[in-house]
């Protein structure tokens, strides 16, 4: 499972980075969204992988058996903030497009 998760993170990062490097705003937003997934997943697995033991306390269970709750708490807020940031840059790109007439990152169309 570790290899599966690690490779998934890698694929997400690669696709995210590629999109972040595009010339138009919308792909960049998509790239950042992919990148955010990757970062959240990455942060999450810093507590290592535990199957079938969510950190909700139950009678008669070893403390050591639970999944690490701390990265989960951090990632939970990170997901919500990630959304807020995605929304923010999306609106920023809308504003740029509407007031500049182009959605190119540099604010002007490059003539070939």
């Amino acid at each position, binding site marked *: 499972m570790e290899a599966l998760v690690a490779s998934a993170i890698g694929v997400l990062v690669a696709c995210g*980075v590629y*999109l972040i490097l595009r010339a138009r705003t919308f792909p960049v937003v998509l790239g950042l969204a*992919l990148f955010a997934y990757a970062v959240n997943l990455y942060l999450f697995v810093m*507590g290592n992988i535990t199957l079938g033991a969510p950190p909700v306390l139950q009678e008669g269970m070893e403390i050591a058996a639970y999944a690490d709750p701390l990265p989960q708490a951090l990632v939970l807020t990170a997901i919500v903030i990630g959304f807020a940031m995605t929304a923010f840059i999306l609106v920023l790109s809308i504003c740029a497009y*509407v007031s500049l007439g182009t959605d190119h990152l540099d604010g002007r169309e490059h003539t070939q």
Partner: protein
Amino acid sequence: MTPLFIVLLPLIGVLLPLLFDRFGRLPCTLSAAFPTLMALGMLFSMGPAVMAGEVFVISWPWVESLGLNLAFRVDGLGFLFALLILGIGALVIMYAHYYLTNDDPIGRFFAYLMLFMGAMLGVVLSENVLLLAFFWEMTSLSSFLLIAYWSHVPAARQGARMALTITGLGGLGLFAGLVMLGNMVGSYDLSVILASGELIRAHELYVPMLLLVLLGAFTKSAQFPFHFWLPNAMTAPTPVSAYLHSATMVKAGVFLLARMHPALAGSSEWFFIVTGVGLLTLVFAAYVALFKHDLKGLLAYSTISHLGLITVLFGFGTKAAAIVGVFHIMNHAAFKASLFMTAGIVDHECGTRDIRVLGGLKKYMPITFVLALLGSAAMAGIPLFNGFLSKEMFFYEAWKLPLMGDYPWLVPAIATLGGLLSMAYSVRLVYDVFFGEVGETPKKPHDPPFGMMFPVGVLVAICVAVGLFPEPIIGPLLTAASAAVLFGDPGAIDLSLWHGFNAAVVMSLIAIFGGTLFFTQRARLYVLADKIWPDLTGKKVFEQLVEAVATAMRTITSTLENGSLQRYIALLLGFSVLAAGLPLVRFGIEPGPMAMTEIDFVSVVMWLILVVCSLATAILHQRRLVAVIVIGVVGLVISLAFVQLSGPDLALTQLSVEIVTILLLLLALFVLPKSTPHEGGFTLRQARDIVLAAVAGLGTALMAWLVMTRPLESISRFHLENANYPVGGGNNVVNVTLVDFRGFDTMGEISVLLVAGLGIFAMLQGLDFKYVEGTISRARDRYPVMLTSFSRPLLALIILISIYVFFRGHNMPGGGFIAGLITSVALILQYLASGIDWASERMRINFKLLAAAGVMLAVLSGMVSWLAGLPFMTMAVQFSLPVIGEFNVVSTLFFDLGVYLTVIGSMMVILSNLGHLGQIEEEYDENERLTEADPWKP
């Protein structure tokens, strides 16, 4: 305490002239003179003890971890300098009162002057070398302010900038050198440093440290090749030139040589560098001075030359030479300050300081003439003046110098040449200004008011008195100062006027008569100099250097910053990959010892879907709607992954956020272009991006893999053990962490959410669609009847669920974040199903206010604990009240409610404002809209 007050009084005095400025010139001047004289009085009170050889050291810890103490030291050397600074300072204040015109802001002038005075006193009285460096910088800055005092004159601004650059550079070098010095001996206190000379000179870093310290000393004392800032600083008002640029600040450099003499001097490196630079400066500057037609320019180069002389003396490294160096510091301060003030008088009364224009002033300014004559005689080293004594002793030390091996004549010859040139320009100063034909000056010359001549008179009187009776007047002070420089007993100092017929007398005679002869031949020399003197000045070199640096920087900047954001991001990512990748390579890529968890079939399928959809997003991004759909799948798989990996709270959060995100992207596509234009085939840039992306992905995957295969040491055990009892009172550890253990973090995060919402609201206000008018088209479809009819009863149901999720959050997956997201989704569904107009009419809630109220509630619930005297955000508080007795308040529920409200408020602000973008567009096809049928209207 007295040393502290001596430094602090002028610094407090900075404010007085600014306050008294409004009461007129005289009160302003007095307000500057008062602290100066008071500090001078305090200094005198310490006089007898210092003369008796006592050293006062006081110290308060300041930044102990850095070894920086507020420590002051009054020994003979510090006393001598403080005396010069305060004594000449008082005279300069009086002189400036008459010198400055009514147009000059006098309060500002005296404020700067007092600032400089305090800084300079700090330099000479510091016990801690870091403190010394601090005051050193302060003198550079206050000097900058004073040179640029007439800031409307471009030359003043240029001169000030040049002085600051050069002395600031030296100051940095000095600071580095002093830190090295402190590390060598293990203390920044002078008492320790001065006593560790042997250790310092034997240290392997001695030479670099010495070079850095000397850089500071030479730049400040205008030694070759850093000399050129001083003549350019002559744009300052003359009182400043007299005070800073001849008597005190430029002496800070030689003061440093004297101060560090016990610790640094005595090595051959010290001898060759310091003596060599000093001799070069001595002769070169004296030669240039001879050709300067500006009175102040001549004096400036003469100052550089005399500073060179003092530097040479400290460079010799012998006891006797160091004593002469201290002696010449005093003498030079007296006669040069008086000559500068005289030059100021001539300038003030004649309206020019060009020696070619001036002449015959003896007739009009008899008193000024006498003062100038006496001052120049001291500068030239004529017998019976103080300058003669120290110059004679300098010649003697140069003659006796044992260190020159096969060239014993070299140093005495250069010294004599310097003396000869000094004589020549002194004669020129007096003769060309006061004798000869009367020149056509802008003003009719006459003697200045008494107040302007008095300070000059005092200084000249000192020159003559010391020249006639050196032993009784200056003997004790010189002995005490020399004891401090030598860090030991200087022995008996012979200050008699006549030492018998020796080499020094011969050198003096050569200098005096040769100088006079040189002067008489000056007309031919000027012609010659104009022919052979290269058109190369320090100022030009400096300006070209500055220009070259600026050009180079501009080139670098324009190369790196070509205006392409894509390139910046690529550089940023490239360097991030490097920064993360290098340690990865260095520490090796070895997986840890942990056994892998099992892989099941469903996980593999999910993994496949994730990979395919991620790649599809990247590949199909030009068809934007398709890309939004596939990225939605990615988000859903991620939330499933959280389920599988024991993160139910995360799965719920991710799921609700995913729905909202996709909605958001779709709304944005309403305005933005629906597809990305092709950029012309497979380009080099695309290849670069693919490589960069692949490397970044591979690296991140590797890092995650390496961490996951290693055993985990986490602080989470504490959270798990204390979540229910005694701290948190809940079984869902993630939620307890959010609202209790790390509540402060959560508070910050909901604030970010609020700010993002408000930012989006602000950005969308008043957008002008004129550039993109034609490109946005509105969908003509009706709102789907099925969705509309289901969404309304669903609203109540979903809100009910969200309340349930909210309350069970402390013990089961759920809580404020998730409940807030679920409620938002329910509300947004109404917008989606029935249209913005319909929903807005019915939802009359100010969501901005709601979000703000949520943050406020969270903060307030954190403040409850203050009532019980506990730290902020202590969530479970036990109160005991009279009558009622003890009771518990657990404010986590209110905190979580705050989170809930903030999430709803922000989400709705973001989405409804984006949704309203469509409304703005509707105004363009108002008529069409009216004909459109609404299924819910009869």
